[in-house]
């Protein structure tokens, strides 16, 4: 149990001395997960809007499927994406396996169900009056969607945050798609897995604490700018 306290001290030491390898993997973790969250948001928020506002056969079932996919196991997504972008796979030509862009793609796919589903929930909660008012003022479908999204923006940003959090803290996709290559695709989570398997529990704990504090800081920042 003293590993926890020692881990905390080690984390402070690593942060204060700006240990170069830790800075490198932390930056990489952030860049990859932020990129994947935004990539997913770019596609999923409008998609969520479209699904919520259109009426079509199987809408209920689609929403159910999306919600089921919230808890997609990360190793399964990792395996699926691996089969997709492996040289012998359909998207093999792009050479994405064992590269950061590949990891971004994998994590974006991982968090998409959350983003789509929570956007739908957020928009459904907006008073239908807003939509009707916009319509009566002559807005196009796209403009209506944008207006309602703006109205629901706190909940939509919450969806983004959750997606980013999931991407930042997952191991399955990062490990299978990135390969944990030192100096290239190693991130905080895969480092924690590696150091634990090597028996370096204090270092593992320290990296874990750094990961948590990053999440905390980002959440605080986004919360500050989320308020009206």
């Amino acid at each position, binding site marked *: 149990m003293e590993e926890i306290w020692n881990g905390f001290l080690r984390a402070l030491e690593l942060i204060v001395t700006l240990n170069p390898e830790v800075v490198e993997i932390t930056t990489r973790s952030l*860049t990859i997960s*932020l*990129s994947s969250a*935004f*990539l997913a948001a770019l596609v999923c928020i409008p998609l969520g809007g479209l699904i919520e506002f259109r009426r079509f056969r199987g809408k209920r079932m689609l929403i159910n499927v999306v919600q089921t996919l919230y808890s997609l196991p990360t190793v399964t997504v990792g395996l699926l994406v691996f089969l997709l972008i*492996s*040289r*012998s*796979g359909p998207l*093999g*030509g792009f*050479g994405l*396996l*064992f*590269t*950061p*862009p590949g990891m*971004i793609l994998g994590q974006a796919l991982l968090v998409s169900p959350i983003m789509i589903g929570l956007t739908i929930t957020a928009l459904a909660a907006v008073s239908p009056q807003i939509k009707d008012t916009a319509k009566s003022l002559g807005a196009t479908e796209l403009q209506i969607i944008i207006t309602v999204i703006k109205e629901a*923006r706190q909940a939509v*940003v919450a969806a983004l945050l959750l997606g980013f959090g999931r991407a930042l803290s997952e191991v399955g996709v990062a490990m299978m798609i990135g*390969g*944990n*290559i*030192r*100096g*290239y*695709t190693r991130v905080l989570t895969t480092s924690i897995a590696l150091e634990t*398997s*090597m*028996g370096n529990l204090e270092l593992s704990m320290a990296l874990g604490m750094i990961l948590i504090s990053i999440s905390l800081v980002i959440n605080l920042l986004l919360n500050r*700018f*989320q308020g009206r």
Partner: protein
Amino acid sequence: MAEKILRTTLLFMALAVLCYAAAAAEGDRLKLATTTSLQDTGLLDVIKQKFDEKYNVSLDVISGGTGIAIQYGERGDVDVLMVHDKERELKFIKDGHGLERRCIAYNYYTFLGPEDDPAGISGMNASAALATIMEKGNADPGEIAFVSRGDNSGTHGREKLLWKKAGYNYSQVNTSGPWYIEAGQGMGATLNMANEKQAYTLSDMSTFMAYQGNLTLVPLIEGGADLLNVYVAMAVNPKKHPGVNCELANEFINFLVSDEGQQLIADYGLEKFGQPIFSPAKGNCALIGCSDVECAVPTSASCAAA
């Protein structure tokens, strides 16, 4: 305010993706798939340092069990393999996935166990030891246990071979009882588990020495042809997998078999553990069963596509 932040972050993300794309387009990265037993010792970090510097490239090391390393090779996802399972290596070449086999280094597996050796296998022949452990483990699983890699690795392959020599079908063994524990992990993690349970296990010498400080297990059987462990490098065949970096793969293998590379391997461990943990293949070809054409000599197969 929120829009400004979001816009800036989007820009940042776009820049990040561009940077990665640019770096990826650089092209001079060599992807090496290897086994955890090799990676965990730290040898590849030293090799990478020298190789990267000398050729101004980046050696990307992806480690997993021999099983997945071979898979990566068969899918053309990596450029070169470093593994230690002769049977699977020969099959890899025969199936056209690999160019040539080159013996690079060797050491020995070691049979580890608790200091008090409850099963009394010290000094026995490895296969006989396994049979004894099985017999006594079935009788008293609380006292006597064996931790297997259980992950289709080269080490696991050797264990299975030893069971075969002892006259057992592997499926008899791993269903035999709670005395047989399948870790399903790399060598380091398996050692930690065996240590925790004070059980017997098979390990390569190098990883054992790297972890020795944290273990109370001791080597009970060492050396002998049974426990010989030869590391081999193979470039992935560009005729079957056109995207691989064959030229660089061959340069890497040539570096490994060069005097400099072999010396690096021979010296590794002196500083860290007080003694080298690998032996170079060069000069020991007959001992390790590698023919002259594949033992620590430069590559001869050309990369020209069919």
